[in-house]
């Protein structure tokens, strides 16, 4: 049957096989909103707050705010990778607390142990999460819920049911790492920025980063295209654990002690920050810079409520919650619009 060539000659070539025109304009706008929406809101909030409170836009307040945000930001960085693969890591809050207690305990032996011990323990938990998620195909939600409980138990055991509080020795280099600074800006801020720079490079510009997106975007297709799915998943959970442990250690140095109640529900703040920053909770799309903006937004709102003073700090959670809902609704709306377009 030689009918195909006839048809081929009769084809209108200009169409090019792409989706109809007109879809791409709306597509671009919704992609921009997804990516930079949080930044626009952050700038607006900062502007309004600066005009309303003269105590807000001061070097002292901003530095304190940034250092405060640094710990959550480091945790959110790891969470970003996990969420882009389509997973979730609920253990980071407990790992953060465990890291803090271990760091404070180990700081009596010097700065290096104070950093290495918590990071190693957190890495082991992250590795276990990764192995279970990648090899057994158990839901990440369940796996990391279990390790969240496990890590909390471990932390209580180390701190004698929370009765024992280890203090970081005064004047140690470990303390200086979190409390010192340069040009009026605390070291943790520099550290966080460096980590985000590296994280961004890793995600956007390396083969590993591409496989993170591919696994979250379509796991089966990724496997058929030759992506090492299991290895990619293992790596993101390992990273998430390591970063949470490190953030916990840094926080202990900042506070001068390992505080056991810290890190409670921190995983939820981290997830909120990541989602507010434009990363899709279903995976496949996301940006580390967005997560940084998300963390800052949460922290600025907290700061504003503190500045207002008359409002109970509980309202911070209400505002964050409302914000999160708004973002998720917007995301769903945008992606539905795109599917139709």
């Amino acid at each position, binding site marked *: 049957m030689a*009918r195909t060539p006839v048809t081929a000659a009769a084809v209108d*070539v200009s169409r090019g*096989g792409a*989706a109809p025109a007109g879809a791409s304009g709306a*597509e671009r706008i919704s992609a921009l909103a997804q990516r930079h929406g949080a930044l626009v809101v952050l700038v607006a909030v900062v502007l309004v707050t600066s005009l309303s409170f003269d105590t807000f836009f001061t070097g002292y307040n901003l530095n304190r705010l940034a250092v405060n945000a640094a710990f959550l930001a480091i945790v959110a960085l790891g969470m970003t990778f996990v969420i882009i693969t389509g997973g979730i890591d609920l253990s980071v809050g407990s790992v953060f607390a465990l890291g803090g207690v271990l760091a404070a305990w180990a700081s009596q032996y010097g700065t290096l142990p104070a950093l290495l011990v918590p990071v190693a323990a957190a890495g082991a938990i992250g590795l276990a999460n990764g192995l279970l998620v990648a090899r057994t195909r158990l839901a990440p939600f369940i796996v990391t819920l279990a390790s969240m409980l496990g890590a909390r138990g471990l932390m209580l055991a180390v701190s004698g049911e929370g009765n024992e509080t280890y203090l970081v020795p005064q004047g140690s280099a470990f303390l200086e790492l979190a409390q010192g600074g340069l040009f009026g800006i605390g070291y943790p801020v520099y550290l966080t920025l460096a980590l985000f720079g590296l994280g961004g490079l890793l995600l956007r510009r*390396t083969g590993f980063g591409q496989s993170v997106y591919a696994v979250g975007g379509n796991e089966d297709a990724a496997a058929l*295209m030759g992506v090492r799915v299991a290895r990619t998943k293992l790596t993101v959970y390992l990273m998430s654990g390591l970063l949470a442990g490190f953030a916990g250690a840094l926080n202990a140095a900042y506070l001068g002690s390992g505080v056991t109640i810290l890190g409670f529900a921190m995983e939820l703040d981290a997830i909120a920050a990541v989602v507010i920053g434009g990363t899709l909770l279903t995976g496949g799309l996301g940006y580390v810079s967005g997560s940084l903006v998300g963390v800052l937004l949460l922290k600025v709102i907290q700061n504003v409520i503190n500045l207002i003073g008359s409002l109970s700090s509980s309202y911070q959670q209400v505002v964050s919650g409302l914000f999160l809902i708004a973002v998720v609704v917007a995301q769903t709306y945008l992606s539905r619009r*795109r599917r139709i377009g």
Partner: protein
Amino acid sequence: MTGPDAPLAPILETAGLTKRFPGVLALDEVAFSLRPGEAHALVGENGAGKSTLIKVLTGVYRPDAGSLLFQGAPLRPATPLDAQRAGISTIYQEVNLVPLMSVARNLYLGREPKNRLGLIDFGRMHAEAERTLREYGVSVDVRAPLRTLGLGAQQMVALARAVDVDARVVIMDEPTSSLEPREVETLFGVIGRLRERGIAIVYVSHRLDELYRVCDRVTVLRDGRVVHTGALAELPRLRLVALMLGREVEQVRREGLTRFSGERTASADEPVLVAEDLRVRHLVDGVTLRIRPGEIVGLGGLLGAGRTETAKAIAGALPLDGGRVSVAGVPLRRRSTAAAIRGGISLLPEDRKAEGIVPGLSVRDNIALAALPRLSRFGLVSERRVDRVVATFMERLRIKAAGPHQPVGELSGGNQQKVLLARWLALHPKVLLLDEPTRGVDVGAKAEVQRLIDELAADGLGVLLISSDLEELIEGSERVVVLKDGAVVGELVGEDVTEDALLAAIADAAGPDGTAPVPAAPGGEAGSG
């Protein structure tokens, strides 16, 4: 030096390859051999084991027994990556790319061009992606997410990706099922060039004329066993079909290959579907359609002509910017798919993966999904009635599954399509909109599907048929409405529905002698009379 008739050592050879799934022996001691530079057709009914063989060859599944020789040495790929590294490149049955990632990133995933620092060089990647894709007739913004491309263009990206790596063997599992004729030509050109370089092709398709155009040899699978292998040109079409179906040649000849009776006469009743002046921004521009009970109306046109969009607009799946739809004289007020279904309109969507099948649910639940309200009383589902309906359709459409409770995701591609078709048929609609109903369906089942459509039409159902298979469109419809750029540009009726007339109407939007070309008036009142 690598002509197909030179007696060359096979590049790929299997012996005794066996693969068992719970309840099915998908491959039964398969011996398959591929020579360098040849195009080898792999054919068989839906569920015969073609895709499974390919997946075993490329490390997606581990075989239970048997051996695989590649370039004379044993090969045991544990992952698709191993197979790719060894030189076997594959386009799997469904478009298998990552929709959220950009076109270029899909093309280069796993082998991104790097700069001196070892970081991905996006400038080079985008330039090269653009150049490569242009060779395949796809000119798009390579930075845009893959999702924004049409199915055909996505398939071309998958093709470019598979061919761009340095492979010795390229396997294509139903590559043309979502391609337009022009794209099919591009594909055949690519296949020709590959063969000149001595690369062997394994080609799976249910479209027989394609096989005879591009392939030298053929291997026929039936129920996981090789029933024939040899030169294709020596094998008459009827004999090939008989081998696939396991029937006698005489029986196949008697029954014919298409089953539309062509003897239906639409009643002169009031139209069961009236769609007037439908408008969707950029996509549909004032389409008017009338379908009478018992009538099958074809929708012709090229990619982007607005066929799928028209069907979706009628079924409430696209928001309308203007126009009215009424079923049996009752206008649809609310514009939603639920309202359309309640009104009696069913749509079999084009993209079954994205819009139809629920892979985790069983065959039974997938079929019963939309019909549940009809099969229940006072909100309670009658399990017996569901079972009966499901059993009927599984038998009539010859759905090959371990049983009604097997998850649909485990079925072969063609059988998934049949499940989807059964879902909409089970609804007993008044109007059935079929968008590529037999895509990926084997010849035997295709005839069965066509007979079913015929029967339903005889019962007074109105059918709108969209098919890029011209033969199906011509034999199936008594009237073909031709679309271009979202508007009706012509209509062929009765005797005038011929291949030549249709091609001419599609080509220059003006029918040859005997047809009444309808001008695409800006007011949009073009349409049926």
